[in-house]
């Protein structure tokens, strides 16, 4: 009984991830069953590491739909990019103390990934989102009016992600 429940749930998750191929293959990106299994296994690790529980729909489908048309997502590193994006997503749900919804964070991530980081995931996590989450902790809520879209533009004049400077720009906008 217990195993049946778990098995059905795992099969559904796998099918849901593979269904994203319908859209992503238009951009030359596809996942195999093994890729999907690996991504789901990594998701489990990330959730444990970030001490989070995910119910029902997992975030990977939304991540794929958000990022699959980015010019910086390459078919050769598609799986690694998704795994890293997934990790970053959970990390910054925590860093922002859940003050930001899934969709808002996904839009902020995509915006910064394309406009500021030019596909550099370490820069996205290490500098941009770090500064952004710090601003949220300080009370910034501007992303709520834009659903998280266009955040990168506000800071395009910055060449270095220094937190104080970042916050000043946020306040100005």
């Amino acid at each position, binding site marked *: *009984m*217990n195993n049946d*429940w778990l098995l059905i749930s795992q099969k559904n998750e796998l099918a849901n991830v593979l269904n994203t191929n319908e859209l992503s293959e238009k951009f030359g990106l596809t996942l195999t069953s093994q890729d999907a299994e690996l991504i789901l296994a990594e998701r489990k690790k990330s*959730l444990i590491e970030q*001490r*989070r*529980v*995910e*119910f*029902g*729909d*997992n*975030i990977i489908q*939304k991540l794929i739909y958000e990022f699959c048309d980015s010019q910086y997502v390459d078919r050769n590193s598609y799986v690694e990019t998704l795994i890293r994006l997934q990790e970053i997503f*959970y990390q910054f*749900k*925590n860093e922002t103390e*859940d003050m930001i*919804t*899934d*969709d808002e964070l996904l839009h902020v991530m995509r915006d910064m990934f394309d406009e500021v980081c030019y596909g550099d995931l370490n820069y996205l996590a290490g500098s941009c989102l770090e500064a952004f989450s710090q601003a949220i902790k300080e009370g910034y809520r501007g992303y709520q009016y834009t659903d998280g879209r266009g955040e990168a533009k506000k800071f395009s004049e910055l060449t270095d992600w220094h937190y104080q400077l970042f916050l000043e720009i946020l306040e100005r906008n």
Partner: protein
Amino acid sequence: MDRISDVSEMYSIEELLPIVKELAEKYTSKESSSITYEAANHLMSAVLYCIAYAGYEEDFTIVEGGKLTARQAYENGFLKLKRLAEKAHQLYNEIMQDFDAYENRCLYDTMVKGLPEFFMRYDIKFKPDDYILTLDYPVLKDLSIYDGVERIYHYLECIKAEQNYLHGFLRDYVINLLTSYHKRYRDNFDNLCEIVIAHEKNCRNN
């Protein structure tokens, strides 16, 4: 509480998780697919607390009969707690009609400032086991086995019994007696009724 341990043994995680999931969706307004361990623990505690309460009648005796499904038990418990919260609020209003703190600050603050806060902030859906207040004024019954609105309801029952007892004496008599017990009784955290009962008992013995 032991009741909670009983419940977690009675129902499997597969039965409890869908309820926690629904609660998580309400908690995040369906805007977050994941929550922290801490939030998940709070929600699981909320579910277990409601289920545990479903097994008790309002006079706190165990319900006899067949086992309910986890969902039925959760919904029953939730409704029962909601009724208890209403009952506690009614009891509070009843007490406050002729409430007298006998100039004791602790009793006054607990009843006049604290309790309204509880009724305003009590979150039956996400934190039904939270009784919010520190209930600084001590009552004569040990309420440590109760959580949430149960503790508040029993607390109010104790306060009502105390008020009934103290109202049996003239106000000045009670205040003089308390003052003679301790000059600073107004600032102390002692149970007023206990002082009066002890004095009366002494008088009778002499």
